[in-house]
């Protein structure tokens, strides 16, 4: 499935239609049997061995779509970091620190691509193809050009936007993976790595590692505001966490920092689409 087709199909209306036949098939199984079938799928044993690839016959469309969305975001990140490292723009910091950070992140993002591709194939699904990315976002940025005096700042700003998006997007898909312990756990294990990346990139930019209210932070392009809208939420499961005490942990700032928020699939796709040709 190509990405545009995938993006097109990602809206929940289309999802519901497309999923009908498979859901019908599901309905002939007891909920327990369905759960067992899904749970039998190994997540990403690919790196370790091929023999465990007992593809399951049934997999919920929600879960598959969650994985395809994750793969799309990982393609974006992996491609971005590889081009960033190739560009020599990071050498501008003169310490090797930015390069080292990007090398480590790049290694992880490329590993996530492989893991998600293998997992989708294990499930009998075709991994969505890698789109063609435009990291200029239609000419707004020129991050890989050493002749651009803003390239270094742009590389860091884009990385922050991608990582903070990744954290929120994975979190938004967790519910779709419920019932499949292996898929859910692996997705959580990627999710927390994205959060480590986000923290470090933010700190490299001189920010705190966590997000305050819906602030994108100094020198972040306005186009990235969608990444941060909603982060100001203080209501966790019906509880306004800023009302749980009167001291410093319960200011609106601290209360918003303490919880990252989700992005829906549609919101994550909209952000990623800014960088897809």
């Amino acid at each position, binding site marked *: 499935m190509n990405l545009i087709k995938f993006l097109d199909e990602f809206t929940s209306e289309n999802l519901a239609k497309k999923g009908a036949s498979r859901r019908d098939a599901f309905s002939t199984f007891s909920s327990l049997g369905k759960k067992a079938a899904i749970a039998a799928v190994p997540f990403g044993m690919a790196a370790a061995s091929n023999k465990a690839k007992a593809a399951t016959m049934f997999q919920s469309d929600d879960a598959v779509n969650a994985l395809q969305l994750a793969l799309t975001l990982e393609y974006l990140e992996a491609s971005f970091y590889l081009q960033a490292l190739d560009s020599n723009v990071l050498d501008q910091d003169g310490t090797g620190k930015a390069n080292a950070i990007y090398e480590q*992140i790049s290694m992880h993002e490329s590993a996530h691509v492989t893991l998600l591709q293998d997992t989708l194939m294990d499930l009998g699904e075709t991994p969505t193809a890698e789109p063609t990315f435009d990291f200029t976002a239609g000419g707004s940025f020129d991050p890989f050009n050493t002749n651009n005096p803003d390239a270094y700042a742009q590389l860091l700003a884009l990385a922050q936007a991608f990582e903070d998006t990744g954290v929120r997007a994975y979190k938004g898909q967790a519910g779709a993976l419920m019932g499949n312990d292996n898929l*859910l756990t692996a997705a959580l294990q990627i*999710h*927390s790595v994205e959060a480590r990346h*986000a923290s*470090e990139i933010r700190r490299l930019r001189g920010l705190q590692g966590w997000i305050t209210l819906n602030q994108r932070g100094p020198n972040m392009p306005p186009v990235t505001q969608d990444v941060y809208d909603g982060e100001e939420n203080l209501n966790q499961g019906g509880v306004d966490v800023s009302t749980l*005490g009167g001291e410093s942990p319960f200011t609106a700032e601290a209360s918003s920092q303490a919880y990252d928020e989700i992005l829906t699939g549609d919101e994550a796709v909209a952000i990623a689409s800014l960088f897809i040709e």
Partner: protein
Amino acid sequence: MKNKKVKVESLTTKKGNKRRQFLKMSGLALAGSGLLLSCSDDDDFTEPNPDPDPELFDLGGGDLGVLNYAYALEQLEADFYTKVLNGSYWSGAAMEEKQILEDLYNHEVNHREFFKAALNTNFDAEVVLPESLEFDFSSVDFSNRDSVLSTAQLLEDTGVKAYNGAGKLIETAAYLVIAGKIVSVEARHAAAIRSIRGNNMNNFKLFAGDDIVDPITGLDGAENPSVIIDAAGGFIVTPFTANQLP
């Protein structure tokens, strides 16, 4: 056993609207326990002895068990950072480190109070973990930077593994999402502490080092509660059991 009934109830609704669910859940939990009170005698025979040592508090199973477990971990972290902020290393620390540790204190106290509120809203008081667990940080020198930072790193990395491993045990989507909202902040903490330690060692990759993120798969850690409770056992004085969690 109480939570078993809640489990059955919540399975039917777990894919539903996430935010509204929480409010409803308190009603479900109450309904569940009410039902069980009336039939508890019959069911007790079929239970695989969930509480072999009635003298000790058991975290429980299902969502209750996971929430109590998270509450214990957040109490541990909050108590640690409270001691950090009362220690001499922190009061004399460089501005950046001071700010980071104060932020971590704020976040962990907020998490602790969130779990206290969520548990007490949704479950009977007698199955909610007591609010003042006692901890022993005598192995930490709160006047020593490396002692404080290495313990912070251990606790944050452990928190990440704990939440990552507990996700699959959560039965209600609303709780899973909230656990997700918290674990990514724990991971941000872990990376920040590792980052300031790494800078001292000229190891700029420590924020997500190969010692904690598998370099082949790119995956962070995930451990079951029994592993985490064993690992944190040295800090925990108040005894409790987790017989209904893996």
